């Protein structure tokens, strides 16, 4: 399946779920989808197309949180990024751990650094931050402020 066929197939199969398609270049496609169709979409890409899940990136915006799920289809040298937009009031999305094991760690990471809740993740515990990190402080959010009064940010020279 080449790039055009794949794109057409996706558009037909998921016509109800796709919000918009942005073709950045010959090797990069961004597809914005409805949050509730994510698992279905990922399943199709991973199982049927044979795409490899690269990673997910969470991007904090002013009014919303974006999560991009990057997939690489190596046979046709294409990176497909599924873009999901979550409102700041309800940071919740279905976990992809049921589709592939690779999603375990990155969901934990996004959970602790950005505060997104992944529904259905078996072990949503701390991965990177220390035990004494305060609850509810998410360092990758735009409104993150230094919370530790003892921190020294001066090189002393």
């Amino acid at each position: 399946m080449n790039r055009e066929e794949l794109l057409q197939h996706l558009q037909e199969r998921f016509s109800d779920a796709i919000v918009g398609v942005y073709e950045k270049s010959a090797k990069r496609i961004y597809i914005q989808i409805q949050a509730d169709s994510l698992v279905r979409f990922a399943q199709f890409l991973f199982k049927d197309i044979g795409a490899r899940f690269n990673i997910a990136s969470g991007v904090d915006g002013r009014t919303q949180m974006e999560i991009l799920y990057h997939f690489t289809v190596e046979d046709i040298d294409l990176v497909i990024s599924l873009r999901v937009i979550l409102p700041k009031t309800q940071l919740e999305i279905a976990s992809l751990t049921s589709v592939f094991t690779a999603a375990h760690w990155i969901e934990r990471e996004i959970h602790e650094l950005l505060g997104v809740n992944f529904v259905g993740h078996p072990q949503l515990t701390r991965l990177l931050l220390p035990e004494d990190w305060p609850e509810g402080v998410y360092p990758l959010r735009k409104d993150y402020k230094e919370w530790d009064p003892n921190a020294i940010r001066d090189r002393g020279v």
Partner: protein
Amino acid sequence: MPRTILPIGPYHPLQEEPEFFILTLEGETVVDIDLRIGYNHRGIEKLAERQAYDQITFVVERICGICSTSHPFAYTQAVEDLLSIEAPPRAQYIRTIVAEGERMHSHLLWLGLAGHFLGYNTIWMWCWKLREEILDVMEILSGNRNNYAMFKVGGVWRDIREEDIPVVMKKIDSIIPTLEKLHKAVMDDPVIHARTKGIGVLSKEAAIDYCTVGPTARASGVARDIRKDCPYGVYDQLEWNMIVTHNGDVFDKVAIRIGEMFESIKIIRTCLSQLPGGDIECLVKNIPPGEGIGHIEAPRGECFHYVRSDGTNRPVRHKIRAPTFMNLPTFKETVVGGAIPDAAIVLAAIDPCYCCTERISVRDTKGQTVYSGEDLIKLSQKKTEQIKADMGR
């Protein structure tokens, strides 16, 4: 059988991130493993948001000292993708040369440490001695042994001088015989066979399910290499082979890395001999709003960067994914079911961030220390000795 809990780490003096493994043992068999990382978390993604685009190359260089080419490479690819530009050909060649040099030094480093953990310090010393030669080459090319600071958005900072090329060629040629000797020593050694064959097997299905990358995936028969599949730099203009094996055990991972070193030598030689003239950078004015993705094949697998710009001189978001992030969780597959003396080498086999062996201590569940880290290495060495004796050597 009573269960024993064996914490490994978090400190080990050898390699990358300190990590903390908790092995649950039944007798000598590992029945469960849990991981705790974060001893190395420095919040680089957040730091990148306060740096200008040109400065970020230096920050990402310091993510990992062994991948100090891979991260800047992937990052520049991402920004160039955002800008839809390409570096001039000479810069692409120089990038490829530096990247392959790094691959060689990284694989040698790993091989040496793997030898050390098998109780073969000879291999360690040999590999690291050979590695010095490659570091010399890198020093000639970039001016530094590590952290080369070669990459910039749109090109490279530093040109390769004409008069350096023969020197580098000669150095590289002098590496080949030693490397071949090393290859023979490792591949024909019955003890290494006994210690690594069939140990820590990662099946092809699991490799796909965990979305592993790089040599870890290729050892399990997943023929994926970003250099071939999604070519960047000048890899599509060169002759080289992707090395794939099918057993998924530690031995295959060793074999792949040794094979790749020979390919790297080939690539460096061709690149140096057909280095085109011309500029080493193109003009980059400002970065428009948009997003870009760059991924390249680091020594350990695919390294992935995502950059989002809002038109200012700093990115809004910079996501970095190092290859080990995908490879590390496979320990759940490979270590469970094996014996403890093998755990050290299996944990090492994906070339993570080495396995903290020097800080291992075994405790029984009541919390008394039974073995120390030293003992575990000794245990491993004893096993090697035992095998040697059994073989009548």
